[in-house]
């Protein structure tokens, strides 16, 4: 397979566009039809073959443009397999390089650089910090070392002519270094950036939510919404599964009594399923300030996933936020909610009694209640009685606590008193934890 295409596929795979082998073959067939000449035609065609969703299309378009933005015509590359023909000796290469520099052969240099890049394996770049190293190795491949040796020898000669020549060489050398770095930089954009991004995301998924800084919020939001989407597609599908295909004999006999019992009309059994009904109550008070932005983010995503969800937020007074989550976009919604309910001092008792008085109709046998908070209630009455009632009335009560279990019960933490009335009490401090818990919740409806 020609290396132009394989490298593009490689870049796509790194950037989370999973191009399968079958699709690679299709891509190859496509290129056979379109050729490399009409760039737009090629791009449109390959996009239909390799990028299979809107996001993948965006990634594809970006990478395609980057990939083909090289200085030279990529048509050269496929037939210039590295290591083809006689391997050149170091001197020859240096000689070639010198010649190209002196004659100002830009295309030749660029091609030599492509070849050196392939030799060194620049497409394996993962982090931008590798740029300098890889650039140097490429230039060594092209024979820069010999060039440098000659330059030093010229300087040593210490004659007028030699010095000028050496100075020229030196200039060419720094020019080359710059070009090589640029080349590697471009390769990094194609192959490496996505890998770095994924590394950061992996790290974020595992790090504690409270440790995540403001600058990571954007990345975090992407992570969370992707998680929500994943959960949604997994569970919406299963919810639709019905029990089909068994004959309902009683109904069939009844319906066909008129035909002398000959079963012209058949009736089939169907099973009804409960729909997930979720009430989420989120603590946004001072003590969980770092955490609540993130929890709201999660609630926002859940809102898009679960059809019947009611969300509440509180510091002390309980505030229904379902409408805000529904109608505003994520940033505005979080800002508004935090402004209205956030950063006060916590009072779980007040919040629970508000729920009891104002929104008790939301809780019934089908409801799963998710409490998100640290259970620190400033030594006020936590109204355990309402918690007990909640436990009895709802299908499940799940408490997700950002603190580690070792801290439960210390200071004003009421977690141990709430715990008996929760079906599940779990520490939940990373995105991974969250995904697992929510997965559990949704599965309980199947």
């Amino acid at each position: 397979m020609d290396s132009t295409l394989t490298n593009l596929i490689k870049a796509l795979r790194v950037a989370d566009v999973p191009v399968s082998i079958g699709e690679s073959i299709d891509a190859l067939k496509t290129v056979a039809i379109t050729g490399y000449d009409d760039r737009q035609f090629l791009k449109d065609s390959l996009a239909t073959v390799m990028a299979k969703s809107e996001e993948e299309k965006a990634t594809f378009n970006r990478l395609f443009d980057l990939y083909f933005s090289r200085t030279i015509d990529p048509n050269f590359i496929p037939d210039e397999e590295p290591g083809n023909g006689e391997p050149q000796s170091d001197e020859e290469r240096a000689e070639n390089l010198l010649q190209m520099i002196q004659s100002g052969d830009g295309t030749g240099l660029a091609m030599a650089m492509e070849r050196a890049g392939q030799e060194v394996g620049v497409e394996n770049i993962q982090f931008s910090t590798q740029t300098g190293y890889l650039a140097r190795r490429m230039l060594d491949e092209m024979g820069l070392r010999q060039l440098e040796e000659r330059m030093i020898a010229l300087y040593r000669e210490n004659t007028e002519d030699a010095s000028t020549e050496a100075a020229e060489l030196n200039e060419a050398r720094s020019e080359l270094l710059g070009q090589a770095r640029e080349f590697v930089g471009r390769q990094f954009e194609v192959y490496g950036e996505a890998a770095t991004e994924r590394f950061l995301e992996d790290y974020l998924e595992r790090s504690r939510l409270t440790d995540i800084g403001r600058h990571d919020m954007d990345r975090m939001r992407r992570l969370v919404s992707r998680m929500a989407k994943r959960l949604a597609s997994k569970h919406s599908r299963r919810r639709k599964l019905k029990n089909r295909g068994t004959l309902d004999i009683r109904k069939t006999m009844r319906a066909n009594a008129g035909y002398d019992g000959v079963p012209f009309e058949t009736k089939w059994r169907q099973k009804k399923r409960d729909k997930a009904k979720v009430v989420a109550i989120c603590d946004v008070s001072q003590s969980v300030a770092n955490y609540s932005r993130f929890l709201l983010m999660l609630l926002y995503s859940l809102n898009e996933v679960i059809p019947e969800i009611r969300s509440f937020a509180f510091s002390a007074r309980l505030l229904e936020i379902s409408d805000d989550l529904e109608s505003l976009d994520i940033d505005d919604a979080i800002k508004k909610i935090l402004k209205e309910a956030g950063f006060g001092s916590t009072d779980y008792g007040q919040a629970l009694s508000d729920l009891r008085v104002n929104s008790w109709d939301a809780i019934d046998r089908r409801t799963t209640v998710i409490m998100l908070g640290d259970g620190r209630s400033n030594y006020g009455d936590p109204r355990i009685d309402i918690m007990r009632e909640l436990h009895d009335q709802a299908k499940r009560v799940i408490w997700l606590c950002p603190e580690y279990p070792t801290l439960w019960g210390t200071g004003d933490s009421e977690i141990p008193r709430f715990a008996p009335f929760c079906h599940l009490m779990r520490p939940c401090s990373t995105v991974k934890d969250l995904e697992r818990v929510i997965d559990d919740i949704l599965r309980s409806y199947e």
Partner: protein
Amino acid sequence: MADKNVKDLGTVEQITEGLGSVGYISTQQISTALYIAQNLRKPILIEGPAGVGKTDLAQSTAKYTELPLIRLQCYEGLDEGKALYEWKYGKQLLYTQILKEKLHDILGDADSLSSSLDKLHDFDDLFFSEGFLEPRPLLTALRQKEGAVLLIDEIDKSDEEFEAFLLEILSEYQVTIPELGTVKSDVPPLVLLTSNNTREIGDALKRRCLHLYIGFPEEKRERQIVQARVPGISETLLAQLVSFVQQLREQDLKKLPSISETVDWARVLLLMHADKVEPELVRSTMNVLLKFETDIQSVDNKIVEMTKIANGERMRRSQQQ
């Protein structure tokens, strides 16, 4: 492969032109996808918001190629009985009831159980033959002698099992009926699947299809589309209303208006003898464009400004000319 296709779609330019001749304003991407689909003999999965002309593309392609359009509308609970074929159960039963009377004549001279069974065996093939087969869209499409355009509409509405069931048909263009054997199409149909993305389509299916995303059109193309659909409309009104809809799409709305809404709106404005887009007019006809009360309310105070821009742009352009 391509040579087996009786109807050749032609080059990308020809496709664009051909679709244009039947009233579908194509883009480079759309035509390219059709071109590649024909040459690789692969189905196309078309995604995009509702009302941007996904289904229409299939209809127009059928019209352009003069092939029959066979449509399978997907929904939750759709199974192969409704998509592929079914035995005419009622007819089978009816025939058995009638034959019951004849049973005695047939079995009359049989003296043992095994010999009467032998006689009966001649019948069961009869009941599972062409005469009792009810072909559904997929089978119909495979059996078309000249080829066909097969539209599998809103595949995202169907269940996951149905997707899996489609795989054989989409990659081999053949299907196996246990009683009859494998049916293979002489001329593979051009298959278009559409999805509104209410759920993620499975990877296996995606891998077998080409993927085409049709988004909202840009201003120029939208004008062309409206022009093609609502022929009597004046230049001025057309430009203004399209500009207005384009602005509307930049707002935060639950459901953005798509092309079909623009076309409807253009028809309404034409009926009302409007010659330009004015705030009052817009307000009274807003429910054609926006389908949620909250959406209508949220843009209400921006209408004046948006109409101004829509009209202003037009004025600037005419000054330039």
